[in-house]
């Protein structure tokens, strides 16, 4: 089940497990319509680890909520595009049909385990809940399965923890409970939205290690959404870089770190301090992520781009595909 990034989908003779096609998501707010996602397309293969990276407001989290059918409507709306899961368009499913997939075939873990767990239910019963719902298990059976899951995700003394409430656990433990819940029904896709951002580094290393192990052992596809290139380096086969709701670059992970083509990707990688890099003044991208209600003609990155020309200001660049690498920039080759 191991994913080989060198193979194109055709030679791998595998069908993508998830295909996002030309997805557009708008939010209708008092200040105007925000195009949170603008023509997002990518595929996820069985066993693949896909990273989506971007700053706040890039639309990276909205894209995962769209897959889970969790865009609040109103104000949000999937305007166009398809999300194909094994060929079924998730955007066309009714709530009832979606409930069968959500938490069973596709699961998600969130950034803040404190706010995503129910404070008045014990950890054990929260994990058991999805087993009762999706697998039709009896409560008792589900609880013993929950115990096994808690062991699997590395929770010490699970018998005791099962009966505890979320507030009695530390942040890392809560995230493990979230992961146990997400894994309960052995999903085919695990979506991780900033799973370690709220955790300390030593605990972050434990959680990333666990996610990697689950991917290797169970062949589960992982969609890793983060702002942290370090996490991306750890856990992705392919990386998508998003800016203002658009994919500006996509490439295999080792390629994107060595030869980023888009000026935004270059700037982002250069702006991160790293202990493996000689220190000096950090590269910086001038300005900031534009207000989402602001309309920018042409390429949305031009106001911050050191290479912008007249062409960039006037017309939105097309996505150029160079083998495994794709980039949305007029001047990618020259810069």
């Amino acid at each position, binding site marked *: 089940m191991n994913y080989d990034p060198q193979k194109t989908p055709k030679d791998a003779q595998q069908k993508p497990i998830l295909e996002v096609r030309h997805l557009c998501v708008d939010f209708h707010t008092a200040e105007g319509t925000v195009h949170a996602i603008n023509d997002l397309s990518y595929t996820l293969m069985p066993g693949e680890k896909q990273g989506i990276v971007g700053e706040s407001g890039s639309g990276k989290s909205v894209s995962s909520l769209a897959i889970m059918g969790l865009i609040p409507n109103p104000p949000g709306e999937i305007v166009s595009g398809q999300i194909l899961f094994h060929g079924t368009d998730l955007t066309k499913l009714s709530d009832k049909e979606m409930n069968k997939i959500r938490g069973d075939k596709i699961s998600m873990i969130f950034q803040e385990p404190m706010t995503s767990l129910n404070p008045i239910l014990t950890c054990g019963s929260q994990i058991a809940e999805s087993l009762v719902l999706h697998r039709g298990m009896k409560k008792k059976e589900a609880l013993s399965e929950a115990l096994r899951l808690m062991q699997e995700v590395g929770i010490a003394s699970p018998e005791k923890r099962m009966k505890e409430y979320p507030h009695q656990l530390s942040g890392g433990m809560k995230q493990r409970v979230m992961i146990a819940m997400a894994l309960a029904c052995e999903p085919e896709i695990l979506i991780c939205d900033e799973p370690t951002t709220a955790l300390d580094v030593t605990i972050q290393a434990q959680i990333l290690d666990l996610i990697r192990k689950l991917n290797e052992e169970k062949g589960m596809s992982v969609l890793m959404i983060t702002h942290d290139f370090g996490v991306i*380096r750890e856990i992705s086969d392919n990386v998508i870089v998003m800016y203002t709701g658009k994919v500006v670059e996509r490439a295999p992970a080792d390629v994107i770190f060595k030869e980023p083509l888009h000026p935004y990707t270059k700037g982002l990688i250069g702006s991160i301090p790293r*202990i493996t890099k000689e220190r000096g003044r950090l590269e910086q991208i001038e300005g900031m992520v534009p207000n989402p209600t602001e309309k920018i003609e042409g390429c949305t990155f031009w106001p911050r781009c050191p290479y912008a020309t007249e062409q960039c200001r006037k017309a939105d660049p097309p996505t150029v595909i160079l083998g495994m690498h794709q980039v949305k920039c007029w001047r990618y080759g020259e810069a």
Partner: protein
Amino acid sequence: MKRHEEQSSGNNTERDPIVRAQDVRVTFRAPGSRDTVKAVDGVSLEVRRGEVFGVVGESGCGKSTLGRALLGLVPLSGGKVIADGRDLSTLSAPQMKEMRRKIQIIFQDPSACLNPRRTVREILTEPYLIHGIRDRKKIDEEIGKLIDAVGLAPYHLSRYPHELSGGQKQRIGIARALTLHPEFIVCDECVSALDVSVQAQVLNLLMRLRGEMGLTYFFISHNLNVIYQVSDRVAVMYLGRIVEIAPYRSLFENHFHPYTEALLSAIPGTGEGTKNRIILQGEVPSPQNPPTGCHFHTRCPKACPICSKEVPGMREILPDHFAACHLYDEKI
């Protein structure tokens, strides 16, 4: 940096400390019980004039409390803090107020520390008024210079905090800390809430201001990459104690304490693969009930019997490089 050189030559020593902590202890009462939490448990260090002193550690290790203790913002339960040659605990209220002009702080969350009902101009004017400077013309001139120094434009002065982005708010937080020409600034996780591209802008700004104004920073962060980027010397904290303290290059190349080693290896995306990663088992123990002896022995892959019994002392292992670990007991 110029000022730094002048002052150090004036005092005829390169190790002229601007702030010194001697066996500082801070104890809090745990809510709803009689237990006490030793947030800072006997920390001694000196911050040298003109340097960036980085402090790194996981949440709950006491790094923020230590930063506040250095400013006299939390009562000490033991030890003393000497700032600019004077013991903070001996200062009267007016003397302390005078001292606060020299020692300042920049907080993590700029939204939480700016008054939402005041304009940027009012926020930046307040420190002058508190310190009895009432010459409007002079204040406006100073604020104009500051707003320019932190990379904002004069029209930002009439804005309210909610009209600014996170990065702009943090620039206001920095400008406010600079109003009274401080010498020593505690930066408490001051880039942690910012996006990476903005984080780089703010870090570059802080380093430029240090050079221009001859500032000394006590830079607190949980992010080792950031600490590496800015620090001259680094202290690593674990459960209220400093376990290692060294010049940055020496620390990142030669770290001696097993906790430092684990912390460095836990940084995601460094090195090839993850084969050599040390994954610490378990979590940071509760500071309400810390382990005996060396606080780290419960998670330490190299723990010996002595570690649970005796608190290791600080030893100088390389020049200016100290670690508190029993592993180095005999070697010295």
